[in-house]
């Protein structure tokens, strides 16, 4: 199993709950906005703690309420591409890319920086600050930063949003490459039905 996620998270009167087991490399998580898709990604990344449940990715248990297991976010090796990118505003693109790479163990770095830069076409951006980047450029840097941190799996929150048609297509191709060549488990949040159909082997609806 790549993704085994069963969790419950309460915010006030509302509740997000999900039961998901997928052995597809790329699993899509869909649902109306506000259904808690990002909440699920945050829980898998360890950025928030579910009230109950169990999370395992590629055989490694990251969270288990019943057994008191809660792996720290920095130990989970999640390559999280946030919907709002969250580049570090005080660091240039090069430093943003290097942030996770420097923290990863050498044996965990499975992709070279030059390869990522070429793949994403961000070579011209390295000396710039995030505030000067367009939406699409920002997103590509965020993907590169996540890939370079030596992740065991990827969490992609609307990675194609705010990209123009050509860039979105290139991003889809990149995701397909990662899926087919690297076999890295990916959980993709998207609201685009056609995109999901094309990329994901399994679609899970959150309601």
């Amino acid at each position, binding site marked *: 199993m790549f993704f085994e996620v069963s969790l419950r998270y309460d915010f006030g009167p509302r509740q997000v709950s999900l039961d998901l087991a997928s052995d597809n490399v790329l699993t899509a998580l869909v649902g109306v906005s506000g259904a808690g898709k990002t909440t699920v990604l945050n829980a898998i990344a360890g*950025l928030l703690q579910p009230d109950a449940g169990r999370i395992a990715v590629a055989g490694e248990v990251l969270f288990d309420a019943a057994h008191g297991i809660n792996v720290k976010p*920095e130990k989970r090796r999640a390559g999280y591409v946030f919907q709002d990118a969250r580049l570090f505003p005080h660091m240039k693109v090069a430093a943003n890319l290097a942030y996770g790479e420097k*923290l990863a163990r050498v044996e965990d770095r499975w992709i070279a920086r030059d390869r990522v830069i070429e793949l994403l076409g961000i070579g011209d951006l390295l000396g710039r600050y995030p505030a000067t980047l367009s939406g699409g450029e920002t997103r590509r840097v965020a993907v590169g930063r996540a890939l370079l941190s030596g992740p065991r799996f990827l969490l992609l929150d609307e990675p194609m949003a705010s990209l123009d048609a050509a860039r979105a297509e290139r991003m889809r191709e990149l995701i397909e490459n990662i899926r087919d060549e690297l076999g890295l488990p990916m959980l993709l949040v998207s609201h685009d039905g056609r995109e999901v159909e094309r990329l994901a082997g399994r679609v899970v609806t959150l309601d």
Partner: protein
Amino acid sequence: MLTDAEWAVVGLSLKVSLVAVLLTLPVAYGLAWLLARRRFPGLIALDALVHLPLVVPPVVTGWVLLIAFGRNGPIGAWLESAFGVTLVFNWTGAALAAAVMALPLMVRAMRLSIEAVDRRLVGAARSLGASRWHAFLTITLPLSLPGIAAGAMLGFARSLGEFGATITFASNIAGETRTLPLAIYSGLQLPGAEAQVARLAIISIVLSLLALLVSELLVRRSAGRQAHVL
């Protein structure tokens, strides 16, 4: 311009304020971080305690310092026996009084700029493999740097103007604890010192104004145009 004695007063004031700010900086930042980022029982009480020197009569703050750090006070007696350090009637005592009085203003400025740092950036750093501490050092601390500088300037301005707690705790000793405000006060007691009082007062106003302007500019830079500490 200024006489040698007046320059000495200015020099002492700057020394006392500088030491007070450096002394308070790490404490104020720690408190600001706690108040900005943590939710715990007693938070409101801590917040009130930090702000107490802002509202309590300074002479009371000086009296409390005298009780605690005086020769017979629990901390003062220990400092004297363990390190041979005496704070009362000493410029270091003036620095301590100024530090306590500057603390609330410094905490306010720093807290504001820590709150302005997007917590989600810290989450991003954690997911990239940064420990809590590494994320603090590489994200929160550098992004709140303008607030630290603003707090330091504000604390410096407050320290320069400190009077009540200083005269109560460290007394008014020429060349030792007689800072600008105390020198102005002493000048007012003497006949014929009007010109000296005026010179020292103008220096006080200029130094304070500069520190205030710089700190306000720094906070606006870090926390946005709408933010202010005054």
